[in-house]
Every structure is written in structure tokens, then in C-alpha cells.
């Protein structure tokens, strides 16, 4: 099953490699990993999307907690949370017909065109992973030049928060 794990990590050199190293050393899956510092410069916030049986997920959270650099951790999966991912897509856009079609499709998905050339559009889109997948599917495969995805980030709904 897919899990979304959110972590607060000491903002120290090597913290990221400890975490990614743990996943590769123990053979766990990482679907995506995002990380950046928080409002507190000594802390980084990380979101990891991983898959595994309940037993594996339990081990992943325990092993992550064991790392000295990990300050706090929560598996959001069972709770009430918001998940978003950001994507840039560069597509071919040549001739009136194709340019109009890309624009129309982007409007449907509430995507924004953020860069334009005579032959290309660059589009920004935010949403759940499945929404981004759907956009890629809808866009004719031959039209796509490149795709850049951020990986998911998550936050708890309501007053609950992952803070120290």
C-alpha cells in the first residue's frame, strides 16, 4: 500500500543521504521524496511517498525514527491530510490548431502557461499525483518534450500539525 510519511529533520549536511541511504540499504521503495528548510532554519521538512506491506511500513517508520537526525515523523496515510504535487510540462505548440488545443486542455486542468515560444508552451500544474497523470495522458504523447515533477508534499488538515 502507498504511504505518505512526513518528517522533520535536522538541517544538517548528510541528513538527506542518511535517509535515502536507509531506503536503499534496507531495500525499501521510494516513490518520491521532497525536502526543503522550514521557517526554522535548523529544520528541514521532508515528505516521502513509499509503498510496502504494513510490516514494511512499520519498519520504515521505526528505522527512520532511529536516525539521530530525524526529529519527528508521522505517517499521514490513515489521517486527514492534503497532498499536492507540482509539475512543469514543456509541449510542442505549433500552428493555430495545436496551440489552441493545448491551451484548452490546460484550462480544463486549471494549469497555467508560464512560458511561450513560437513552437512550445511551458505549463505549470499543481494537484494530486493522479491529476498530473491524467494531464499527461490527455496531452498527446508525441507533443510532450519534457516533464518535471516535484514529488508530493503533504500537510495535515485542521489544527493538527507536525511541529516540535
Amino acid at each position, binding site marked *: 500500500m502507498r504511504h505518505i510519511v512526513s518528517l522533520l529533520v*535536522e538541517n544538517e*549536511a*548528510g541528513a538527506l*543521504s*542518511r535517509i535515502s*541511504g536507509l531506503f536503499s*540499504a534496507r531495500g525499501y521503495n521510494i516513490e518520491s521524496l521532497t525536502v526543503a528548510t522550514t521557517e526554522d532554519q535548523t529544520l528541514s521538512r521532508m515528505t516521502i511517498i513509499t509503498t510496502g506491506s504494513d*510490516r514494511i511500513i*512499520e*519498519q520504515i517508520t*521505526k*528505522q527512520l*525514527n*532511529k536516525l*539521530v*537526525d*530525524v*526529529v519527528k515523523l508521522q505517517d499521514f496515510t490513515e489521517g486527514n491530510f492534503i497532498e499536492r504535487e507540482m509539475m512543469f510540462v514543456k509541449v510542442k505548440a505549433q500552428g493555430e490548431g495545436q496551440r489552441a488545443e493545448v491551451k484548452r486542455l490546460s484550462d480544463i486542468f486549471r494549469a497555467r502557461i508560464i512560458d511561450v515560444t513560437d513552437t512550445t508552451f511551458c505549463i505549470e500544474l499543481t494537484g494530486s499525483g493522479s491529476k498530473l497523470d491524467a494531464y499527461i495522458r490527455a496531452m498527446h504523447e508525441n507533443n510532450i518534450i519534457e516533464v518535471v515533477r516535484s514529488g508530493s508534499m503533504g500537510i495535515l488538515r485542521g489544527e493538527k500539525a507536525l511541529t*516540535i
Partner: protein
Amino acid sequence: MELSGSEIIIRFLKDEGVEHLFGYPGGAVLHIYDALHKQDTVKHILVRHEQGATHAADGYARATGKPGVCLVTSGPGATNAITGIATAYMDSIPLIVITGQVPSHAIGSDAFQEVDAVGVSRPCVKHNFLVKDLNKLAETLKKAFYVATTGRPGPVVVDIPKDITAPHIKIPYEYPKLISMRSYNPNVNGHPKQIKRAVELLLSAKRPIIYSGGGVILDGASEQLRDFVRHLGYPITQTLMGLGAFPGTDPQFIGMLGMHGTYEANMAMHDCDVLIAIGARFDDRITGVTSKFCPYAQIIHIDIDPASISKTINVDIPIVGGAKQVLTQMLKILVDSDQPVDKSATQDWWNKIKFWQKQKSFAYEKKDGVIQPQTAIEELYKVTGGDAYITSDVGQHQMYAAQFYPFDEPRRWINSGGLGTMGFGLPAAMGVKLAFPDKDVACVTGEGSIQMCIQELSTCLQYDTPVKIINLNNRYLGMVRQWQEFFYEKRYSHVYMDSLPDFVKLAEAYGHVGIKVEDPNDLHDAMKQAFALKDRTVFLDIITDREANVYPMISSGKAHNEMDISPLQQKIQATLKSKGEIA
């Protein structure tokens, strides 16, 4: 007080109570060695290879309970130390390894003797640090000791660039007494509700077994374990790492369990209805095939490391906490309870265990004119009165030592259980002897293992650490040969130790005493002679039966009750069968 980085390191070690520092100098640590030269509180032991430094510090730590400390240079110094760091990591031994690093400005430039020590050691340390700021040096060292020695202990590497140790840059130094880390707060107290549930389950058992491991020794909980086991009157088995926590000669101890454990311990594991694991981690050498592990048992697991719980075996009552604390809590409930332990409830169980014991699973056949490896260990036990510190290398000799030398005290049996590092025994013995100069220290080894760190014989001479090397020499890499005999139709692929050195001459060349024994009749006297030479390192080269095997054995994919037993035990079973004692 204004000190340079190098002086801070040495002063800190002194303030921390470190007496011995195992190390090897080199370019990146020259400043530190200069500071070391100007004092005599911290004694430096110059090993002959950095692996030896880590194993010696490790042996010292295992025997004393204090952290072992090493100092090595950058690059090859750091990489040579890795095997020893990984060894300590697998057995949860507190070790602090200070590695020199190229100057900060040169890091990442592929400088001479540069290696990313933090990166290379990361998978086999509890934690590691790269010191980037001289002002944080003392605090970082304190954190290293704190992390290494608390919770589930383990090795910590502190990588220090050369410029941080420069002699001309001085800053104020104060010993950082207290340290707190927001991201690291190990819990030692067990949850009271879980403990109560565990006690109730234990008291309801008809076929209980206590299975304890190295965690009990690491936490200094032997006394609590003894009180607990004796109060309950239940049988106890111990892992290879746990031997000595409960006395090996006590009738309640039914032997080591696992791959080469006793028949009775493994059978009892298979048949038990309640299992309590204390400071043990259900290692694959213990469990046999996990799908058939303790099929009838409800399992209680006490461990300081939450990640060890339900990692390989699902448990019914997990208790996260230190062995000492949790056993004290459990014993208090037991003692305060109005209900005495009903010893009659487990009488049938004990009878069953005694019947298994009758089959004498360690019994072995003697041959005329050939020394059996088991006999050598039995002689070692006799001559040392069972009171020596025994280190070992890895292989058949290690199993024989574990089987035939019952340890009555903790921290006496020192071996690489988790990583299985050949070459561990001799440097570890050296470390133990430095800690306990008046005690007998013997390294049980084989002609394969001893050659992996034999250079430390030189260190033994320099620092006057008269250890006894008990070399069970069967001219084979015995354990590998045994597997090739059992599972590869005797295709002995590259296990013959051809062109062995003359170990007697070798010992003499290093300035020690060498004694070769080939005749079983000479064994006792040779052993006595070796230990009588109190102030000499003695290399006892014992020529043993070439194809002796370690029994019982649980092969891979097999359960506890599916052991291969020795030919002699098979005969004993046949006799018991003919008498109608086995169906």
C-alpha cells in the same frame, strides 16, 4: 583555558575518563599526535593496522562496559577501520572512532589520502559527525560519546579536518558536561501496562522459555536477569551474544540456542507456549526458518530498540525499554504478588527438557592420537578454572568455544556475533588484557582467522599484553569446509590452508612463546604451561582433527526441531529407543 583543536581532543578524552586510545598516526592527525605526545594521562596503543585498533577498542568496550576509543588518519586509515566499525555496529558496541580528514579547503578535491569518511561509514555507524567549526569540537565529541553509550549502543565516527586541529588557533575550552539533543531521547522505562500483561502471560505458561541476548549484558542487567529467572524457575537459553549473563553452569540454563545450539534449547524453543525474549533480536542464526519459528508460542519481547521489535518475528507483547529497568519492573510485580509461582505447573515441561538433555547433543567421539577441537576447549576450561576472558575469531572454533566453555559471568565471552569478522579475536584479546592485566585472557582462533590480524602480535609485545592464543589448527577453513561437506557433496573449494606458516617460529619471531601440540596426551600439560607463563604471550598451535564438525546444526530453511545431530547423538537416540524411552 585556551586550547587548540588538537589539545581540546586530548583534554576532552581525559575529562571523559578515557584511559586507552587505540590508534595509528598519519598526515591528517599529526597535530593530534603532537598534542598526545605532550601528556601522559591518555595512553595511546599503537596498533599495526587500523582494523586492529577498532577490534582492540571493541574488545576493551565489551569487557569493561566503557566505550572504546580509536584515532586513525584520513583515507586508508578510515577505510581500514571500517570492518571494525561494522563489527561493533552489528553487536551494538559503544565505540568512538576519531578519523582525521584533509583540511576543510581541500575536502572534495580528491586530495592525498582523502576519502569521504562520513559517507563511507554511514551505513555501519549509529551516527557520525564531520566537524566544520572548531567552536563545536568539544560539543560534538560529547555528543559522540552520548550517542554511542546510550539507548542501543553503537559506534560513532567523528571526522575532523586537519585545519580544525591546527596548533596555533586556540579557543576557550570547557568540558561540556550535559548534552541534550532534541532528536535523540532513548526511552529506558517499559510501559507498565505491557509489563503487567507480560507477567500475567508468563505466570499462565505451561511450557515457558526465557531467551536472552547481548542486550542484557550491554545494559548491565545480569543480576536482574538472574533474580528474574530464579524467581520464575523457568528454563533459560541464551544467544551467542548473551552467554554469561545467566551462569552457564546453572541447571536452569539449558544451553545456547540457534544454528549450533543445544538440542534441548532448540527443541524447547519449538515446543514452548510462552517465549520471553530479553535484549535479543531474533537474528536469522537464532530463528531458523521464520515461518516455522515457535509455532505454539505467545511471544513477549523486551528491547531498547523499537525497530528490533516485530522486525523478523511478530510478537504479541512488545515492551520497549532497557533490559535492566524492565526486568526490575517485572520482578517487582512478581515479588509483590500474593501468588507464588506454581513450580508444579512446569514440572512436565522440565521432565521433557531433561529427557532431551539425556541425548547429549554436544557429545563427540574421540580418536586415538588425534586431538578433537572440543577437547582443546574443555582443557582450556579446566586450566583456567572457567574464569578467563575468552575472545574468539569466527568459524568452528568460535562455536566450540561457545559450546564447551560455560561462562558464569557476563563480559567474559567476547566474539563477533553479528558481522562474523575473522581477525577479531587477537586484537580484541589485547584490548581486554589492557583493561584487566591480572586476568587470564585467551583468544580461541583457527589457522585461517588468526592470519587476518596476526600483525597485532607485534603490538602485544610492545604494550606487554600477555594473551594466550589457542589456535585450533585443522588446516582447513573449517566452517566453510563443513558446509561444503554437507551441502556441496564434499567439493572442498578453496578451503585448504596450504603453505601455512610455522606458527611456533612465527610467534618466536614476534618475541613470544610458541608451543605446538599434536598428541592428545600432551594437550593438558601444554595448556598448563601456556597459562603458567604469566607474563608472556603464548601461541598454542593445536593440531586438531581435520574433519570434525560442529553439531547440532540447523540448516537453512529448517526449523528448531529439524536439527542435524551428531553421529554420536544418533547412537544415543538409538539406544534410548531400544530401551523404549523414545517412541
